[in-house]
């Protein structure tokens, strides 16, 4: 479980790094899109599958904690700009300061969430191991 949270975390880290590079001029928006878009959907799917697992395991509290993020992911993907392939980012608007700042903030918030979730799960695992 912790491993997969790691994977999500990595996707988010990638997003943070990529946006930072974009901001500091190391990258152009098209490369950026090409780096990030392929990992967006996997990240969302992994998170969704976790939610399903929580559901199956009747982990209501954990599920409840994850539901807001799941809902956010669904909303985010539904409201993505018109595009033919999978992905989220539009290279023509990403340089817009508002959008760039939003994406960066989103990255940091999600990273924080995944980290906390990781520790929560570790705690849960150890607790179960110890108590059994």
């Amino acid at each position: 479980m912790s491993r997969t949270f790691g994977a999500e975390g990595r996707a988010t880290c990638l997003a943070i790094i990529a946006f930072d590079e974009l901001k500091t001029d190391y990258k152009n928006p098209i490369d950026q899109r090409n780096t990030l878009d392929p990992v967006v959907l996997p990240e969302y799917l992994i998170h969704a599958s976790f939610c399903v697992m929580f559901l199956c395991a009747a982990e209501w509290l954990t599920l409840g904690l994850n539901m807001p993020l799941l809902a956010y992911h669904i909303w985010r993907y539904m409201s993505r700009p018109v595009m033919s392939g999978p992905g989220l980012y539009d290279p023509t608007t990403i340089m817009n300061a508002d959008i760039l700042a939003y994406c960066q903030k989103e990255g940091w918030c999600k990273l924080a969430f995944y980290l906390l979730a990781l520790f929560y799960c570790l705690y849960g695992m150890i607790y179960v191991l110890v108590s059994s």
Partner: protein
Amino acid sequence: MSQPGIPASGGASTGLQAQNGAASASGSPYTNGPVQNALMSSQVSVSQGYNSQLPGSYPHLIPAKTLNPVSGQSNSGGSQTVSPLSNYQRPGQAPYGPPVASHPGTPSLRSGPSPQMPLPTSQNPAATPMPSGSFLPGASVPSPSNWQYNYLSQTNHCPRASSQPTMTGNTNLMSPQYVSSGDSSLQNNFIKSGSALPLANPPLPTTFQPGAPLGPPPTGGPPPVRALAPQKLTPRTVPQPSFNSTSNQEGFWSYKFNGSMFTLFLATSQPTNKNPTMSRSVGYSYPSLPPGYQNTTPPSTTGTGIPLSSLNYPSGPQAFTQTPLGANHLTASMSGLSLHPEGLRVINLLQERNMLPSTPLQPPVPNLHEDIQKLNCNPELFRCTLTSIPQTQALLNKAKLPLGLLLHPFKDLVQLPVVTSSTIVRCRSCRTYINPFVSFLDQRRWKCNLCYRVNDVPEEFMYNPLTRVYGEPHRRPEVQNATIEFMAPSEYMLRPPQPPVYLFVFDVSHNAIETGYLNSVCQSLLDNLDLLPGNTRTKIGFITFDSTIHFYSLQEGLSQPQMLIVSDIEDVFIPMPENLLVNLNESKELVQDLLKTLPQMFTKTLETQSALGPALQAAFKLMSPTGGRMSVFQTQLPTLGVGALKPREEPNQRSSAKEIHLTPSTDFYKKLALDCSGQQVAVDLFLLSGQYSDLASLGCISRYSAGSVYYYPSYHHQHNPVQVQKLQKELQRYLTRKIGFEAVMRIRCTKGLSIHTFHGNFFVRSTDLLSLPNVNPDAGYAVQMSVEESLTDTQLVSFQSALLYTSSKGERRIRVHTLCLPVVSTLNEVFLGADVQAISGLLANMAVDRSVTASLSDARDALVNAVIDSLSAYRSSALSNQQSGLMVPFSLRLFPLFVLALLKQKSFQTGTNARLDERIFAMCQVKNQPLVYLMLTTHPSLYRVDNLSDEGAISINDRTIPQPPILQLSVEKLSRDGAFLMDAGSVLMLWVGRNCGQNFLSQVLGVENYALIPQTMTDLPELDTPESARTIAFISWLREQRPFYPILYVIRDESPMKANFLQNMVEDRTESALSYYEFLLHIQQQVNK
């Protein structure tokens, strides 16, 4: 290297292309300009300088900007410093009393020394043709103690004025070539053009001479009196001084002025009065200046000896009110001062309704020292919404005004210095180009004005080719011109400069043939084939498409063009790699052959499908090795292959602001445009469609590839002759205008400011870099800025745009514009410096974005809120005592009107039956037009033309051009017995009232009576009557001011165009929109909440 390079220029020496097309005065402003000898620095004479481009309409710009420093306030050396200190400290008072009282004799002063004569050389070195003469010890030798190298420019800031043969080969330092022009012509020309600003020379030198009494010592020669010849004065020529006497100089100027003072002699004219009467002198010494121009002490309005009306005198200190009534000539002359008390007025819009000036609105002049200001960039090229930059983001947020820049970087300029130098001096850390606003710490070091890094002055830069003097880096043209062009060396190229490549893609489906557009387009192309900007390397190609794609082989040696048809539109390929794009010179006959036969080739076609997407892909493949310009003509919704679209418009929902499709339905065109952008291909779209064609999706192809969109609704060669004419005229301009290939534009700004968002047609490649596969002189850009770090430790900020492009002659060039603005710390100053036109323009751009991302009604609300927020901010913070009514600062007096006009503009209007494509086209125009045209489209100028007289007329090149006053856009201004001309930028509409005087009908329109005016009349007959001559002179003068050709429609009561005419009456009420007065009431209600 911060300029992402792109290919670049090889044979630089083939001859400079004269910078701007608009070169010849006589002439075709559209051409690409004469070819100049590279060695000689010939330049189009200044005479046709900025003002010949817009003759007379922005006369004051000249002075305010580069050419002429002194416009309004001619510095008169003669009038000795009069009570220097006392006057100055009262900003409010200064303009009134002293001048008149203390200088009863001023008129004589003016008339004495001939106004336009350069004063003694020491004062106006620039005026003397001989370079050597230009440096008198007094003026030019910097005295270390008093004079720092920065802000040097006292004498020569107008370098092009001194005609200087460029020397080449003298020494190795000589490489810089500098284009200059004879100054005598410059002077003459000013006069001729009626600009009333005969001040060709920077008069100020004296002020800066080291050593104390700068006040022009009598011995120093006749004072540079810049008097305006009275007869030249016209309402439009009120000089706008570039400097306000109450400026906040201490910070950066005082060290130069210690103990010194100088006298300003102000001679301005007022619009209504032909005699320039007001003149005054203000002596002052800098060190004791009050900071800023806000009146910290209650201004004294007494002592003027002039009746002031008593309307609205707020007792608060800042609220300095003076109404123009009764003091007409005084205020008019005051308006010549940039710091005129007029600017400090607080206006109650509910009481003073007629705020629209009768002459074109001039941009405000930044509150900078005149020496900086006179070097500043022309506001037509580079303009900021706030001419006083707020110190912190908090202050900016408080003001609720948008901060941003509006650029027209590639505008056709008649006069532009071009520098050829092996090293281009730039800041080592931020790569800023050296510009007039850097400071020289000593002779060998300069400090960047953007990042404050201290850089070395390269050896080569020490030599000034203009004066042939060594050791004067501060006199180099780079440091004397805010707008300059460099010939880029090979470091600025990633590949050899591309040849000009033009590819035309024609829709030849049944629908297209029906409209008959091919005839017009092919004919225009045939006519302009030799005028296409280019050189011997120019390449041209043609593709036509319906449900298949047709290529044309134009190989040299073929007896006639060969058509190759590719019917596989799923996987498009190029049938033969060569010979589809051919050298225009070598295959000219084949090309002409093709253009002649093309219109007939498809007359029998029954194919109704249109495979635009595959055709674009094919064209892209064809062009990607070189880059270039692709012109696509499309007449219907694409229906086949990739990029096929579906009709989305629902006619019965047109009027509602909800649920309209402003966003593209597919990203095919956007992705293709990005690919094009990567390969330096720009796509220009000509849409000639009767039905809905989903411009929202199609337009992306141009938008992200830096192309432009042209739209001709319901084009038909027989049924719609007006559109035919429009297409012809616009094509003429399109084909012959200057073009820059493989361009990038970078915008830099002083540390602390950052770029927030760009608006326009391009692809943003990084935070400050725009990728522009093509750049054309009719494209404008807007940039939103934000203040990231506090600017407390700086007094000036600068913005620099650098456009690197390949000219059609294959040279790599960099055009640099630099704008310098003061930083202020109080809200009142921010409001005082607001540029209402620029603000409205930027808001329009932001509103377009908002309509696309949110909804149209959101965007409309945002526009209204922008007015309400900023006015309430003003009310709560800047006005000390609360008054009823709608109080606005003078600078924003037209803000509500312009926003109302925007709400009624085609892009944002509701309640009318605007077709979706037309609305989207209007939005494209908002984004892509330069500010001047955007404002004209939004708020057209209305003139009454049936009673034109020569009173107040200006004369340009021996032509007398009447100057009727601009009227408010309200039906109450119309009358049935008159004729009114509305100038809406791209169209001119002449509305003839039913009872219009017989005189006008017969003498101007050439018809017997009203009923005989033709239904569609787009030309005025040239009759041999003075009335006709005046009207035609006026109309052609309006046309000459813009690069395209606005068509004139004569409208009578029953004409279908009448609705368009009346729609522009923005002050009136319509079914769904408020009248101006109602709008004001609405705002007042919100503001006073």
